[in-house]
């Protein structure tokens, strides 16, 4: 299991370096000093590519974050049972947050 998840951690790292850079650049520096408003977000979500971009950012970001967290957990002594419980918990948290994020994005995109 570890070889696959480790490679995915590295792949998500490469994607995140680019995607987070773009995310921060577009949303925070293209109009420095002004607060974003709802209208701008809705206008932005008219482009399907950007919805896909946001969803991918969400998925890779949370995978990277939660696998990182699991890795911290593994660095300390743990029993088999604890590992299963923690992994299950992290998967649930991950799916829940990704689901909620995607739901939020799609609902906003539909309310044009």
């Amino acid at each position, binding site marked *: 299991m570890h070889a696959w998840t480790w490679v995915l951690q590295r792949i998500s790292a490469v994607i995140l*370096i680019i995607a987070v*850079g773009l995310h*921060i650049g577009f949303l*925070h520096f293209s109009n*420095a*000093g*002004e*607060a974003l408003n709802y209208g701008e977000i809705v206008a932005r979500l008219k482009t399907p590519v950007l919805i896909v971009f946001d969803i991918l950012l969400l998925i890779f970001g949370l995978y990277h*974050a939660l696998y990182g967290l699991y890795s911290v957990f593994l660095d300390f002594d743990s029993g088999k049972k604890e590992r299963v419980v923690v992994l299950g918990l992290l998967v649930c*948290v991950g799916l829940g947050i990704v689901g909620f994020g995607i739901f939020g994005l799609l609902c906003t995109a539909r309310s044009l």
Partner: protein
Amino acid sequence: MPNSHVMSADAFRTRSQMWDATGMWAWVLHRITGLGLVFYIILHTILMAGSLLSGKEDFDSTLSILMGHPVFEFLDILLLGTVLYHGLNGIRILLFDIGIGVRVRTQKDLFWIFMGVGAILWFWSILLKLGW
């Protein structure tokens, strides 16, 4: 009494670390920033999706606080530093994974080069943020 002294000795061992090694501190900081970012990404997703779902007024009032209040401006700069550190040290780690710079001296040089780049980017983005 076979090994009885070893058994009692096992109760004690020193936990001293390498306090003067760049690589270890790079990792410690990577981990701290990483944990901070895990916390942030979860909060950020829930807050953004939540306020988008609760409509225009809520979203605009939340965002005007998050992107206007001086405290959040300061936290934003801190967040940017955290992302820059984690990202740039992350590139250093990715280089090790493809076999570049895996030497005692080189890994330190790489660390300081990336930190230099990070400091410049951070300074530049703070200036941008202040509207220069």
